[in-house]
């Protein structure tokens, strides 16, 4: 299933300067009972965002009208824990198209790439620059360029490059997905399957 194409994104960003943000915070398990991929954004960061009586926690960043945008900036080791793709779906469904951190958990990173959310890993120092810039001015815009593989703080011109493999870059840029690729080499897979001993 094709997804949104990603080329260059210019947006304000929402800062979440907490380390080891785990998938149970991103989307708690009790919200994993859906059988379709929709509506998960309402429960993104549910227990950090809402009190147990469902009133908003005013000190949480998603409830602070100063901050908005299509980019989420998280602390080191973002997305650790579960393989639940629902975490990436919740990030997407809320409206984010890019997550920036100094380190990502493997499965979460892969899940983001598979649904068209761009995970951007920057150095710890650059991450601090981004947090500082947003703290100084919540309207700070970031430019994430996939073709150039750079992220830039537009107000200061500070920029850093990020890694992504050519294959995934192509998929993100064109909105392709892996299954289409795999179906095109179905014959090879079927031949390979015959060689497996068990």
């Amino acid at each position, binding site marked *: *299933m094709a997804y949104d194409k990603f080329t260059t994104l210019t947006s304000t960003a929402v800062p979440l*300067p*907490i*380390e*080891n943000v*785990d998938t*149970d*915070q991103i989307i*708690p*398990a*009790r919200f*994993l*009972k*859906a*059988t*379709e*991929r929709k509506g998960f954004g309402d429960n993104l960061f549910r*227990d950090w965002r809402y009190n*147990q009586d469902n009133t908003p926690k005013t000190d949480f960043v998603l409830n602070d009208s100063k901050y908005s945008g299509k980019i989420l900036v998280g*602390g*080191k*080791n973002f997305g*650790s*824990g*579960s*393989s*639940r*793709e*629902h975490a*990436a779906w919740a990030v997407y469904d809320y409206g984010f198209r890019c997550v920036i951190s100094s*380190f*990502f*958990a*493997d*499965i979460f990173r*892969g*899940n983001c790439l*598979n*649904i068209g959310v761009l995970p951007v890993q920057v150095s710890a120092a650059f991450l601090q620059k981004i947090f500082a810039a947003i703290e100084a001015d919540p309207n700070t815009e970031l430019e994430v360029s996939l073709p150039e593989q750079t992220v830039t703080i537009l107000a200061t011109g500070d920029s850093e490059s990020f890694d992504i*493999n*050519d*294959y*995934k870059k192509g998929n993100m840029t064109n909105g392709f*997905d*892996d*299954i289409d*690729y*795999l*179906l095109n*080499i*179905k014959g*090879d*897979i*079927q031949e*390979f*399957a015959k060689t*497996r*001993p*068990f």
Partner: protein
Amino acid sequence: MSAKKTLFDKVWDSHVVHQIENGPDVLFIDRHMVHEVTSPVAFLGLKNRGIRVMHPEKTFATADHNTPTINQHLPVADPLSANQLKMLEENANEYGISYWGLGHEKNGIVHVVGPEYGITVPGATIVCGDSHTSTHGAFGAIAFGIGTSEVEMVLATQCIMQPKPKRMRINITGELQFGVTPKDVALFIISQLTTSGATGYFVEYAGDVFKNMTMEGRMTVCNLSIEMGARGGMIAPDETTFHYIKGREFTPKGAAWDKAMDYWQTLYTDPDAIFDKELTFDGSLIEPMITYGTNPGMGMSIKNDIPTSDMVQGGASTYKKSLQYMKFDEGDSMIGKPIDFVFLGSCTNGRIEDFRAFASIVKGRKKADNVTAWLVPGSHKVESAIKEEGILDILTEAGFELREPGCSACLAMNDDKVPPGKLAVSTSNRNFEGRQGPGSRTLLASPLVAAAAAVTGKVTDPRELMKVEMA
């Protein structure tokens, strides 16, 4: 002469269908397990594309995450859970996949039943939409958790696309002390590496401690590989492995077994093979462990005091936030903290050996009045063994009840939720905020530590109770 290879390289390389330049490998998957929570959208994807499952005989479905652990003979009361279970059954039937649903004699937690029925074999690639799929690495398989898009990929093409991880070897030498279990070994390793210390790596566990470990213990250790960020962990198959799998329903038989054995006996790391990272620890220094924070890396010897924020790696603000959630102070002793709940179970510690360990401590004692205990076998097979071995009698005598199989309070998708603010000693795998129910506080520990807490009502070094028994 061919290059020296690690165990991981041998298994991975033999499954690569295609290599994409500057991209991932196309990896063939031998065994695929699905459960009700992470599969519905994948099946929906197949329907939208109008394609079938390529190899239904290589996929196995069981219901576990969302199932009640009492009164399983009754209809599931929660309509959302019931709907997810119904979807799994319908999808399995429609696509010709083996389905071990609620009430089926083979039902249980996906990572418990896979090995029990011999679906898990050495040298295989095994995936499931669940991060604790790493469990199956105990058999010398490459096993790891995948997202729902990848579940769809495997259903559609029996392949996934993954960049090859780096290799790490963790050696634990020597002999474990009395009262120290595989769970303690795993929590110790994670406390040393932190929750992200093995991200990007696939781990091989080696050394005498693992050589001398049972399959159940190896599964516990490999299960927790993901908690230090590793995609998976594996242990070279040996006589312990072959003895465990021989004769199980889905393992090869007769000539096929002999042929498989010829291959399996080649599955070890060649001498002088290179790892990207190698760590060695002295197993005799490991003590019973307990966690005090909100990720599995925040663990320590049960006798220690909670570290102060200046002693820990990483951000002090994140550390303080974590202790604040736990309602603990820096420098607190864990021993003696009153607890409210005990959970024995999960894909980490829901096997027969875990129930034997728990029973060894509660035998002749009584459950503490302030403790609610949930004892949840990992499968019906485990449940039967508990009954056959007389463990149920010991548990009943001590005031405990046995529930029916499922993931239960590990992730609290069903009704087994620890209430807000309550403190649980849990044999499961994650102590994240709210993991066992909104506002719940979790201490991860071994079945021995859980049993000691269950009978004393507080955090207790299990060796204290075991000494009495030995005298």
